């Protein structure tokens, strides 16, 4: 059953829309949202958390419109959906100890005796792999990984059903990143949690998410089973993203030389960066449509799938890097 969903959500700051008509559904298990800076992914996360209201469209909690929830419905939503932000040092009040931060989460919805609170804090800290002594520390007295674990413990304190993870590991060292991802994977399995994982790192969604959506300039350009997106990406942007990820011992990442072009104001927003752009892309914005088990917003999706541009995609940039190929 769908726990939380965005249906045709458009989000705007003032007159500028940053997210256009995005639909996304989360249930138990992991869903990935892939996007780079400026793609609108964080704004979308804020809308799903009920922190900003959509300009149009609906965020649904279960079957109910989030914006129309009453007091008790809202409290229920707050208990069910919790965020984990990028940086534990931002997400924890710098003046509060870890114990106080977690206790705040415990006591917001329930009264608890002092002893019960202490036990719960200890249990939660143990659950995220921290010693009870951490409870007395303030954020600046902890390492980045410890802060993120405390932030996760705080989110778990209300026994949520869904976590919205906004770049939960990108501020951390690689080995710490790997441990936090393992932790999230384990917790999700143990507590039967659903989660939305927002990231720019394709390797991370590959491991944790069954389905994923790729966001470009506030629009979902491709969505479907994560494995499919990573092994057989169709949208040229998904391909560019995948090709840009450096691989251990692999070839140097491919480039287009047009990476920094701004999204096009009309037609397909990706066309100024797209190696496959044709006249139609300038005249007509592609709508997402069903193509081989996924949704793609690209006029040339079928051609890509039938193998046409394997050589003419972003690989063109290879010459620029002066790298010998194969």
């Amino acid at each position, binding site marked *: 059953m769908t726990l939380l969903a965005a249906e045709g959500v458009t989000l705007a700051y003032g007159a500028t829309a940053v997210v256009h008509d995005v639909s996304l559904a989360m249930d138990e298990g992991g869903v990935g949202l892939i996007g780079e800076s400026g793609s609108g992914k964080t704004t979308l996360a804020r809308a799903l958390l009920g922190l900003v209201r959509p300009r149009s469209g609906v965020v649904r909690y279960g079957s109910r419109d989030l914006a129309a929830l009453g007091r008790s419905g809202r409290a229920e939503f707050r208990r069910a959906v919790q965020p984990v932000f990028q940086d534990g040092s931002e997400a924890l009040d710098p003046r509060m100890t870890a114990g106080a931060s977690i206790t705040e989460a415990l006591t917001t919805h329930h009264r608890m005796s002092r002893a019960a609170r202490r036990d719960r804090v200890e249990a939660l800290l143990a659950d995220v792999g921290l010693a009870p002594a951490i409870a007395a520390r303030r954020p600046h007295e902890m390492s980045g990984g410890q802060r993120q674990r405390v932030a996760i413990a705080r989110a778990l304190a209300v026994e949520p059903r869904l976590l919205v993870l906004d770049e939960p590991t990108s501020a951390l060292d690689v080995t710490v990143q*790997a441990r936090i991802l393992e932790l999230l994977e384990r917790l999700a399995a143990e507590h039967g949690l659903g989660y939305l994982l927002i990231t720019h790192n394709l390797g991370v969604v590959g491991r944790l998410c069954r389905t994923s959506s790729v966001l470009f300039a506030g629009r979902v350009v491709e969505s479907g089973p994560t494995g499919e997106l990573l092994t057989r990406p169709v949208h040229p942007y998904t391909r560019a993203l995948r090709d840009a990820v*450096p691989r251990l011992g692999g070839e140097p990442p491919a480039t287009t030389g047009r990476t920094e072009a701004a999204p096009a104001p009309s037609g397909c927003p990706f066309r100024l960066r797209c190696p496959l752009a044709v006249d139609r892309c300038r005249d007509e914005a592609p709508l997402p449509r069903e193509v081989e088990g996924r949704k793609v917003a690209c006029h040339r999706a079928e051609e890509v799938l039938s193998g046409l541009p394997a050589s003419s995609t972003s690989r063109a940039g290879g010459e620029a*890097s002066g790298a010998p190929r194969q």
Partner: protein
Amino acid sequence: MSLISVRDLVVRIGDRVIASVPELDVAAGECVALVGESGSGKTTTLLATLGLVRGADVSGKITVGDVDVLAASPARLREIRGSRAALVMQSPQAALNPTMRLGTLMRRALARHGVKGAAARERAREAVRAVLLDPEILRRYPHQVSGGQAQRFAIALALALGAQVVLADEPTSALDVTVQAEVVAVLRRLRDERGLAMLLVSHDLALVSTIADRVVVMRDGAVVESGSAADVFGRPRDPYTRELIAAVPALPESAEER
């Protein structure tokens, strides 16, 4: 011949050794990467190479070109940093004067080195092209360019001044992957075509493996493993290196390439 040579470098704060590197050489046309996590001493080592470590005791011998860094006068050090060696930091935009067009910035830097007029303009355009930017960018202000463009401009600035050495501290970790790929392409090209010596600090092993010729793995201020990139990544000897490698999120191979 090595353009950067470090021998018996020890950086101490009080009794605590924060970086200790017995031997490190970077030759022309070579990229050496210092990898490790925060607190490993990799950035300290890079900064020490340019005499930029403050509030700590630095001992050993460091040469950049023909200059003995630890014995050099402050004026000499400034000269090295200005023209011989380019320091590329995580967020280049912060280092660019926001009130000046990029072209003006570059012209002033060149004028300080005696290059003026048409020669300076030509040098600026050539350097900008070398980092795969459109010379049109010289007319823009720092806030009008993206992070990746600013990063490449910072490299171009050093090139125009005749830098033979590039020291880069996490040059792409603030950038999107697609932009990171472009910056890496530029660095590779400069190394191959211009024979620049590069010292790269990064915690991203996958990234390092696509550009570095040799790798030095650091942990808690000490070197735990060093060798050619192929050896270190292909046959890591130290358990910590293996842990770092295992932590890199793997991407499934794409279908077409199989």
